[in-house]
């Protein structure tokens, strides 16, 4: 029977708890309640004492995780929403991210961030923060777009000796399904060709991969073959795969759900422009969310973030040039 994106995350955590006694999970309402999104359903009873409810103290939640990581534990922290990691910001970027470089002691903490817009969630329950965390040295930032990646990359995250910001997309939680859990996966840091095409490259990640694929279907009916690259992790960012795709297509559109100033799309285009300038037959373009907080009303929300339609429109521009 099919498994959803959120179930995959739950299964990955169950497996991590089962296979590695160093793993524990800490976050708000994740114990008996199973978490706001049920990502830890039954884990507290299956692994007594290792799935702990936290107070509403995000700063101390991350601080505790770092202390445990120093001692060799493998904490998985669930932020109830990515948006609330702003009150844990200092512990993430200045404590967890700097520990290894300063002391040579690794900090294997995994911080799960339920990210991204869902209709009606508004300015403070819809944010994606990959563009913020990826700016900081010492962090790895994963942005899985598929059920399979949600599962295998979360297991990878727990295995990695460095702090990992694991950006889960809430819009994919219940709708996105796979037939079964993967037995193998690409290594962290490798992007994936989600769809092959020779006319242009659309680089995307997380939920935007699916919007890009829909746009590609749409454009296919107009005779354009679009290649869609799923970055999978934005730091490290697989420049090679992106460059190789642009080398084939000569055209690039980069799509992200975060805000337009800076961030993933700027980084991708800057890398291609500086390292693959000669590969480009047309100016590389980008599409992001609009430069305002994320609106509450569904019709505003739908216009705020990139969608299959706006991606297709942007892609047509790139193809025309």
């Amino acid at each position, binding site marked *: 029977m099919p498994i959803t994106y959120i179930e995959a995350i739950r299964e990955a955590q169950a497996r991590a708890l089962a296979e590695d006694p160093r793993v524990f999970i800490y976050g*708000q*309402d994740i*114990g*008996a*309640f199973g978490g*706001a999104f049920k990502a830890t359903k039954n884990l507290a009873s299956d692994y007594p004492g290792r799935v702990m*409810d*936290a*107070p*509403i*103290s995000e*700063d101390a939640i991350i601080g505790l995780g770092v202390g445990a990581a120093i001692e060799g534990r493998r904490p998985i922290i669930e932020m109830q*929403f990515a*948006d*609330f990691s*702003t*009150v844990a910001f200092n512990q993430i970027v200045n404590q967890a991210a700097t520990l290894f470089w300063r002391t040579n002691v690794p900090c294997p903490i995994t911080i799960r961030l339920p990210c991204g817009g869902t*209709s*009606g*969630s*508004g*300015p*403070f*329950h819809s944010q994606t923060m990959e563009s913020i965390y990826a700016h900081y040295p010492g962090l790895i930032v994963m942005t899985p777009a598929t059920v399979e990646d949600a599962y295998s990359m979360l297991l990878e995250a727990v295995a990695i000796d460095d702090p990992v910001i694991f950006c889960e997309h809430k819009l994919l939680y219940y709708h996105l399904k796979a037939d079964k859990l993967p037995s193998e996966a690409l290594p962290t840091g490798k992007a994936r060709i989600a769809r092959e095409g020779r006319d242009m490259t659309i680089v995307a990640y997380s939920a935007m991969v699916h919007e890009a694929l829909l746009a590609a279907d749409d454009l296919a009916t107009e005779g354009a073959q679009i290649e869609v690259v799923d970055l999978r992790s934005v730091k490290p960012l697989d420049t090679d795969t992106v460059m190789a795709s642009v080398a084939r297509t000569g055209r690039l559109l980069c799509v992200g759900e975060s*805000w*337009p*100033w800076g961030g993933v799309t700027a980084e991708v285009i800057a890398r291609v422009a500086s390292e693959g300038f000669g590969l480009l037959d047309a100016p590389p*373009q*980008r*599409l*992001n*969310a*609009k*430069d*305002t*907080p994320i*609106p*509450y*009303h*569904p*019709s*505003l929300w*739908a*216009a*705020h973030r*990139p969608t299959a339609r706006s991606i297709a429109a*942007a892609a047509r521009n790139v193809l025309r040039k």
Partner: protein
Amino acid sequence: MLQTVLNHGAVGESTFRETYQRAYRYMLLSRVLDDKFASLYRAGKIHGGVFLGRGQEALSVSTGMVLRKGDVFAPLIRDAAGRLAFGEPVLDAVRTYLGSPLGPMRARDGNVHRGRPKEGLLPMISHLGAMISVVNGALLARRFSGDTEAIGAASIGDGATSTGAVHEALNQAAIEKLPTIVVIANNQYAYSTPNERQFACRSLADRAMGYGIECQSIDGTDLEACLKALGRAADSARAGRGPQMIVANLLRLCGHGEHDDANYVLAKHKSSPIGRDCLKAAEEELQCRNWADANTIAGWRAESVQKVEQAVATVQREAGPDPFKETWCAISSKHLSEGMDGEFKS
């Protein structure tokens, strides 16, 4: 429009009987309003979550009642009653929940994230604890302007007391001796998390001494107790005695949000005194004091239902926001805005 509804005056300005009656009627109106939102939610008519104040109306309304026009109020997610008492129009609530562009948040923000800063009603951001220092700042501004009358109030829950923001803001208010009332509704749970996983002190009231501020502990299901405690706090704040803390014991008589069946709430709480419905309790009180008979109350209820239904009917006729008319500009200095969309056409 807000003006007309505002300024009910503090306890004592009118007889306590009238105050109690008015308080009850706001509680009733907020309950009816909350029930309406719940049914709209079940009918799939509301985008996102719905958060109710059921069981907390007595405390909430008392906060709204003791504040006057010109005061500052930062309500939280269970404050429909207090908002109404402070003067928030029913239409503001309905328009924000239904995403009407005519509402104070213009469909940009929703549900409990609403207010009118210029009327002293601060719209919460979701991050718990973040509003208390904002109230401090508003009160400091009043002090700068020579306004010695204004006070402020902020609501928080038991869970929010664990945030660093609340600690910093309470300490800041104490240092500046600001006339603010921090009202802690201890409804025993933060979402699903019980007090035992939230703090280890005997009572949250034990925190007040650590800030050097005054505190009262009350039964949050007893309207009279709430009105009197908030009244005392407001008087002390206006008298320049610095920040006031209230810790009210009560129980959330609903889910965290309407999506939550709250099956984690222990029976022992439900059957304990804090488990009683403050609205029913106030109703019984009104009757046995002969301050209102069953008919009067039925009439008040009918009035509330009519108010709410009318507001909902009005808003449901209002057009939704038009994304193409939206300027997509997050700053007021339009000339410094960087273009209207994610592509930065410049």
